[in-house]
């Protein structure tokens, strides 16, 4: 044990029931943050509260349930302005003089509009539908839809045929996809789990800016490959291996900020997958240095379309920022097949805390304004709208679709199925659950067999719930709900947000 002097108080208190502790040492062996240790001479297991990050690994692994982790109370005089967190951050910066890094989505109390939006149900005047007895379609197509459909009749047979050429589409069995998380940010076993779950459920997972590992090419038809500002792992086979290509401009957790995978995480496998030297820092610049305008973006979109023979839809992912509607309009006009918008609560493997907690706008408002703007301009059909950033359950998903999204991305929720406890220490690279780490002894803790099953279970459960909610509304297809804001009502949301969201208050 080291006794370094620090002004920072502990965040968690490890409580051990000595009557239950059988001294098996599982907690000592499992904690990568070294929050437990064995005092052999006294035959006791003790905790180091300062090291505890509250990720629940010891609690889950202890065979006799002897461990409880409690949040440490504020040891200082309570002060609303100088909360414990603010003081801790300040002490940390006084010690290190650095930008504070964090992982996961913002924990700040920005309003979560999903919790203030409620859904409709059918009563008397229109019948609700029982999804267990009647067909209930939750299939969605992502891609550019034509302005009109031209039908021609064969002169001889008189059979109709569609003359209009339909742009490439992704067929989603459930309007939920796994968000971009790179091999590097998360472990290969985590990627494998998501890839397998997506392919078995008929939806998609996203490579993030980590390239596509050779074993994962088999999931290609359920993969969205990402091209981001660092261009890591991008080559012709990679672009053509996926079902769609996503150009990442921004990320909800860190709008306007690039990425940085520290060199110690860049092992042999990652260096090969990303096509970069082993042990070198993988730095993604903040902007794409070849995109300084919508016209530049159009060039990249069409370069990629050219490279993939116009067979793959191209997505553009941006973070939700102040002018998101106008930017989205430009993106659609630049030729994107789908616009992905990542809200302020979107997750990350590492971001400056000050950016994550203060930059961007809530995804609910972004979906509403983008859908509205594209409709008004008559170009809503030209691109699908995918929402991301802190989706927690199936009702968030269905509310997003009713607001105008086509589908959603889930990142944090997907990782939780793999064991993530949202401790936010992703950037440290020693994730106890084998997710946000590349250390071999830790990555093996995530068996992709189990991971894939659990991620698949989540999608299955959400699919059933979405069908139930649709049935209650008397709608038998998810596509009939899209942009159907009359099925939403607001409680405790006031102007001007009501008109931005385009929904009525409950009771009206």
């Amino acid at each position, binding site marked *: 044990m080291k006794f370094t002097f620090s002004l920072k108080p502990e965040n968690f208190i490890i409580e051990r029931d000595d*009557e*239950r502790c*059988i001294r*098996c*040492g*599982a907690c000592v*062996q*499992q904690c990568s943050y070294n929050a437990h240790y064995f005092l052999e001479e006294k035959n006791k297991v003790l905790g180091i509260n300062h090291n505890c990050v509250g990720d629940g690994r010891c609690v*889950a*692994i202890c*065979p*006799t349930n002897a461990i409880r982790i409690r949040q440490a109370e504020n040891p200082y005089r309570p002060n609303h302005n100088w909360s414990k967190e603010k003081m801790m951050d300040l002490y940390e910066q006084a010690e290190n003089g650095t930008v504070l890094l964090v992982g996961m989505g913002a924990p700040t109390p920005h309003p979560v509009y999903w919790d203030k939006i409620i859904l409709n149900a059918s009563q008397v005047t229109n019948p609700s539908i029982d999804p267990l007895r009647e067909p209930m379609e939750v299939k969605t197509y992502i891609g550019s839809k034509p302005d009109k459909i031209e039908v021609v009749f064969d002169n001889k047979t008189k059979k109709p045929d569609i003359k209009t050429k339909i742009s490439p589409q992704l067929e989603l069995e459930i309007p939920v996809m796994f968000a971009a998380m790179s091999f590097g940010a998360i472990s290969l076993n985590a990627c494998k789990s998501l890839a397998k779950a997506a392919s078995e459920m008929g939806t998609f997972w996203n490579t993030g800016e980590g390239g596509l590992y050779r074993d994962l090419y088999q999931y290609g038809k359920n993969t969205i490959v990402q091209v981001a500002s660092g261009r890591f792992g991008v080559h012709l086979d990679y672009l053509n291996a996926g079902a769609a290509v996503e150009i990442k401009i921004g990320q909800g957790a860190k709008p306007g900020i690039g990425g940085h995978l520290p060199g110690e995480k860049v092992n042999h496998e990652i260096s090969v997958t990303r096509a970069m030297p082993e042990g070198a820092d993988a730095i993604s610049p903040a902007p794409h240095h070849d995109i300084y305008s919508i016209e530049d973006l159009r060039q990249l979109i069409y370069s990629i379309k050219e490279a993939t023979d116009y067979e793959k839809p191209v997505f553009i992912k941006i973070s939700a920022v102040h002018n998101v509607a106008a930017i989205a309009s430009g993106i659609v006009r630049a030729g994107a097949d789908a616009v992905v918008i990542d809200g302020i609560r979107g997750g990350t493997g590492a971001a400056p805390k000050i950016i994550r907690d203060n930059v961007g706008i809530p995804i609910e408002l972004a979906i509403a304004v983008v859908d509205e703007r594209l409709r008004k301009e008559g170009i809503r059909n030209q691109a699908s709208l995918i929402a991301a950033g802190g989706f927690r359950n199936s009702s968030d998903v269905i509310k997003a679709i009713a607001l105008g999204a086509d589908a959603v991305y889930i990142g944090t929720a997907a990782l939780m199925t793999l064991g993530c406890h949202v401790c936010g220490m992703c950037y440290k690279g020693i994730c106890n659950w084998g997710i946000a780490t590349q250390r*071999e*002894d830790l990555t*093996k*803790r*995530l*068996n992709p*067999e*189990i991971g894939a099953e659990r991620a698949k279970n989540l999608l299955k459960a959400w699919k059933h719930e979405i069908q139930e909610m649709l049935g209650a509304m008397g709608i038998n297809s998810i596509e009939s709900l899209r942009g159907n804001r009359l099925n939403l009502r607001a409680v405790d949301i006031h102007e001007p947000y009501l008109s931005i969201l385009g929904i009525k208050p409950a009771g009206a």
Partner: protein
Amino acid sequence: MKKLYFREEWCVGCGRCEVACAIEHSESKHPIIAYFHEKIRQTPRIVVERKGNISFANTCRHCEEPDCVNACIAGALYKDESGKVLYNPNKCVGCYSCIMACPYGAIMKDINRKERKQIVKCDLCNTRKEGPACAEACPNRAIIFEEKEG
């Protein structure tokens, strides 16, 4: 016959299997009583071997032709009709020949039994309906209980 198989690539080295084994073979089958209040604390029949990043659980393979049974001078080790290699402590003379004979190091001295030399070995949780306790306790499916050919 269903046997235990160990997957080194998924073993996290937590040792939950050892604890589950000791509890299952106790009188009370209660974690706290088994470890603190019974006359003899059970020695786990399964051991997690750890070195660096590598770890795996190890216990009896219930071999087709078990060397331990051949080596046993007292007839305390035997193979039953189902194929399990079992141990009868009443016949054991404590010579530890089986420990020397086992090529897997899967037979352990019963270190908690002070009055008499004995061994412990896996009985595939003979009386447990749900199958071996270790496989159930494993958080990462590193121990699987299944029927394999060959």
